[in-house]
C-alpha cells in the first residue's frame, strides 16, 4: 500500500469523548474474534485492539507528561505508516463494537481516524483518484452522471419521462453501484417492477442524484461529503415526496442517520426507508401478492442495514411470507453477521483482503446448504457472487428484491 506522508497527525480532531475512549479502552481483545479484517488477514496489527494501542501511543507521544519527559516525543514514520495501514484496511462493518465492555463507538473512532489521516496527508494514494472522480462526476464509476439511468432501458413499458418527475410521492434513490455496475442492474430493475406492480407513484432523480457521499466520508473526506449531502436533500425536498427509499444500505444509513446527525442546515422533509421496509409495508397493506417459490434461502445482513441501522426483522419477515420458501439463518446473523468484504473502500485499498473476507462469508453460506443466498445490498451481492463462484458453489447470490419480483410474477427460479 502506497501511503502519502507529510506532517504529524492532528489528534485534536478527535472528539473529547473519543480521546476519553482511547484512554478507557482496556484492550481486552474481545474485538479480535469479531474483526472481519483481522479474521480475513490474521494480521493482528490491523485489529481494533492494536489500533487502539497505536492511538493511545500516538496521544501519549504528543501529550503525556511521562512520554515528554522520559520517552520519545514523536511517533516514527514507521508507526504512522502502521496506523494508516490499520485504519484503511478496515471494512467499517462495526462488528468490533458489538461486544465492547465499555461501549466504545469504534466505527465512529475509525471514521474520525481516517479523517485525521487524510488531513495529515497519510492515506493511500488510490483514494485521491476516487475523490477526484466523485467530485467531478458525482458518482463512484468512471462514467459521467448523465449515465445514471442507463440501466433503465430494459424495463418493460418504460414511460417517456423515464420516471423522472418534478413531483412524486416516493423517490427511489438508486445509489451508484446499482446505477453503474451492470452486474447488479437487475436490482433497480426489480424494484421498479415491484413498485409498478403495487401501483406506487414513484420517481427517480436521474442525473440530479449524486452519490450519497459514503465513499467520501468513509475515506475521511468529510468536507467534500457535506456538499453531496446538501445537494441530495435539496433535490428530494423539491419533489415534495413523502418517502425516500433506497436499495443501498450505505445510502440508507447516510440518509437516515448521518445526514441528520451532521446538522447541515437543511432538513429532509420526507420519511426515509430502505426498500425492504417499504416493500414490507405495501405487502402488509395487500398491494402485492406473493406467490409460492419452492426454495431454501438464507439471508446475509448487510452491515449498514443490520448492525448500523437495526433493520433485522423486515427482511426475515418478507422471506418467510413467501409461500414455499424455507428460511435458514446463517451461523453469524443479525448483530454478529460477518462482513461480505465489500465495505469501507477496502476493495480499492487491499483487494486480497476483501476477497479473503468474502471467501469466509461464502463458506458460511455453503454450510447452510441453501439454494439461494439473499441480501439487501448490491455490493454484498457482487462480492458474495464472486466468492461463491470461486468456491465452485451452485448457490445463487441475489438481492431480496429480485426474489420478491420472482415471487409476485409467479416465476420459478
Amino acid at each position, binding site marked *: 500500500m502506497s501511503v502519502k506522508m507529510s506532517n504529524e497527525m492532528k*489528534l*485534536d*480532531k*478527535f*472528539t*473529547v*469523548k*473519543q*480521546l*476519553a*475512549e482511547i*484512554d*478507557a*479502552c*482496556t*484492550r*481486552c*481483545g*474481545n474485538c*479480535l*474474534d469479531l474483526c472481519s479484517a483481522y479474521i480475513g488477514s490474521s494480521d*493482528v496489527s490491523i485489529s481494533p485492539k492494536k489500533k487502539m*494501542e497505536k492511538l*493511545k501511543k500516538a*496521544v*501519549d507521544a504528543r*501529550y*503525556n*507528561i*511521562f512520554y515528554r519527559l522520559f520517552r520519545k516525543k514523536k511517533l516514527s514514520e514507521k508507526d504512522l505508516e502502521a496506523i494508516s495501514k490499520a485504519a484503511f484496511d478496515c471494512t467499517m462493518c462495526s462488528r468490533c463494537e458489538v*461486544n*465492547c*465492555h*465499555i*461501549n*466504545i*463507538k469504534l466505527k465512529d473512532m475509525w471514521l474520525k481516524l481516517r479523517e485525521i489521516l487524510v488531513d495529515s496527508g497519510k492515506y493511500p494514494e488510490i483514494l485521491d483518484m476516487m475523490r477526484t472522480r466523485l467530485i467531478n462526476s458525482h458518482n463512484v464509476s468512471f462514467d459521467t452522471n448523465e449515465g445514471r439511468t442507463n440501466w433503465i432501458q430494459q424495463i418493460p413499458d418504460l414511460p417517456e419521462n423515464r420516471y423522472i418527475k418534478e413531483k412524486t410521492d416516493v423517490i427511489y434513490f438508486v445509489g451508484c453501484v446499482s446505477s453503474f455496475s451492470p452486474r447488479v442492474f437487475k436490482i433497480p430493475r426489480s424494484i421498479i417492477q415491484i413498485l409498478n406492480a403495487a401501483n406506487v407513484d414513484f420517481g427517480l432523480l436521474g442525473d440530479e442524484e449524486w452519490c450519497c457521499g459514503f465513499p467520501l466520508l468513509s475515506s475521511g473526506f468529510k468536507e467534500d461529503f457535506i456538499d453531496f449531502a446538501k445537494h441530495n436533500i435539496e433535490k428530494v425536498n423539491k419533489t415534495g415526496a413523502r418517502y425516500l427509499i433506497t436499495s443501498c444500505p450505505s445510502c440508507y444509513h447516510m440518509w437516515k442517520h448521518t445526514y*441528520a446527525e451532521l*446538522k447541515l442546515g437543511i432538513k429532509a422533509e420526507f420519511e426515509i426507508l430502505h426498500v425492504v421496509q417499504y416493500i414490507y409495508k405495501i405487502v402488509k397493506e395487500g398491494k402485492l401478492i406473493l406467490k409460492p417459490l419452492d426454495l431454501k434461502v438464507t439471508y446475509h445482513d448487510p452491515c449498514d442495514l443490520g448492525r448500523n441501522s437495526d433493520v433485522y426483522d423486515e427482511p426475515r419477515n418478507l422471506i418467510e411470507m413467501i409461500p414455499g420458501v424455507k428460511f435458514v439463518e446463517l451461523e453469524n446473523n443479525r448483530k454478529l453477521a460477518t462482513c461480505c468484504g465489500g465495505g469501507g473502500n477496502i476493495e480499492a485499498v487491499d483487494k486480497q483482503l476483501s476477497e479473503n473476507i468474502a471467501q469466509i462469508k461464502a463458506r458460511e453460506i455453503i454450510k447452510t446448504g441453501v439454494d439461494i443466498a439473499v441480501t439487501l445490498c448490491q455490493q454484498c451481492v457482487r462480492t458474495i457472487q464472486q466468492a461463491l463462484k470461486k468456491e465452485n458453489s451452485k448457490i445463487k447470490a441475489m438481492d431480496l428484491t429480485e426474489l420478491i419480483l420472482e415471487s409476485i410474477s409467479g416465476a420459478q427460479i
Partner: protein
Amino acid sequence: MELNTISLWVILGVSVFIFFFGFFYRISIWLRGEEENKDDKSLKKSRLGKFFRYLGVFFKGIFSRRFAGIVRSFFMDGIVHRNLFKDSILKWFIHIFMFWGLSVFTLMTILHVIAIALTPNGAVLDSAGWYIRVFGTLENNFTAMLLDLSKFAILGGAFIAILRFFFLKKKLKSVELKDKSAGVIISIIVVFSFFYEASFLAKFVPLGKAVFAPGGFILSRILFYLGIKWIFLPELFFYIYIVLLFLFVSYIPYGKYSHMVFGSIVAVSNKLGSEQKNKKETKD
C-alpha cells in the same frame, strides 16, 4: 505502633497530589478534542470553557428525570460491569475480584493511614474518636476483615487469571503484558500488606482478636514458629506496603492503567449516550 506522622502525611499528600495532577492532566488532554457540536459558535473553545460545560451537562443530567437511569447505569455499568458478565463469567470474576479488591484495599489503606497519622504516639485509646477507633488499628474487626477480604479477592483474581492464561488457546485474547505486570505488582503489594498484618498481629494483638484477619493471623502463626523477632517489622512492612501501593495508584492516570479509572466512567457515559440517542430517534 509508633510511626512518624509527618512522614505519613508527606507520603499521602504527595501521592494524592500526583494522582489528581495526572487525573486532571488526562482530562485536559481529552479537552483538546473537538466537541460534538463544534459548529456552534456560541460555545467557548478553551479547555476550561469545555470543562465547565461538561460539568454543567453532568449536573443537569443528575438533577433531571434521567436521574433514575443514571443511577441504574452507574450501578450496572460502573459497578457490576454487566457487559463483561454477559460476555464471560470467568473473565468477570477475575475482573471484579481484581478491580473491586484493589479499590477497597486502596480506600481502606488510605483511611488506615490517615487514622494512624491522626493518632498521637500511635496508641489507639478507648477515649479516641470513632474514626480512629475504627480505622486506626487492625484490632478493629471491621478494618481487619475488609483489608483481609480485599487482599484475598486480589490474590484470588490473580490466581484465576494465571490459570486462564495457561488454558487459553489464543494467547492474543489474554490481557497485555502491562496489565499482567500490574497484576504482579499488586500481588507483591498485597503480600507485603499481609506481612505487615501478620507482624502487627503477632506483636500487638491477643490471639482471640486476630480471628477477623485470617490471612494475617495464619501468616503470623507461621512466622512465630519460625522464631522471627517482631520488634521493628510491623513498621518496616507497613512503610513498604503503603509506599508501593501509593506509588502504583498515583501512576494510574499516566499510562496504560488509566483504564482502571476511566473505563467505568466511559462505559456509563456511553451507555447513557446511546440510550438517549435511541430515544430521540424513536421520537423522530
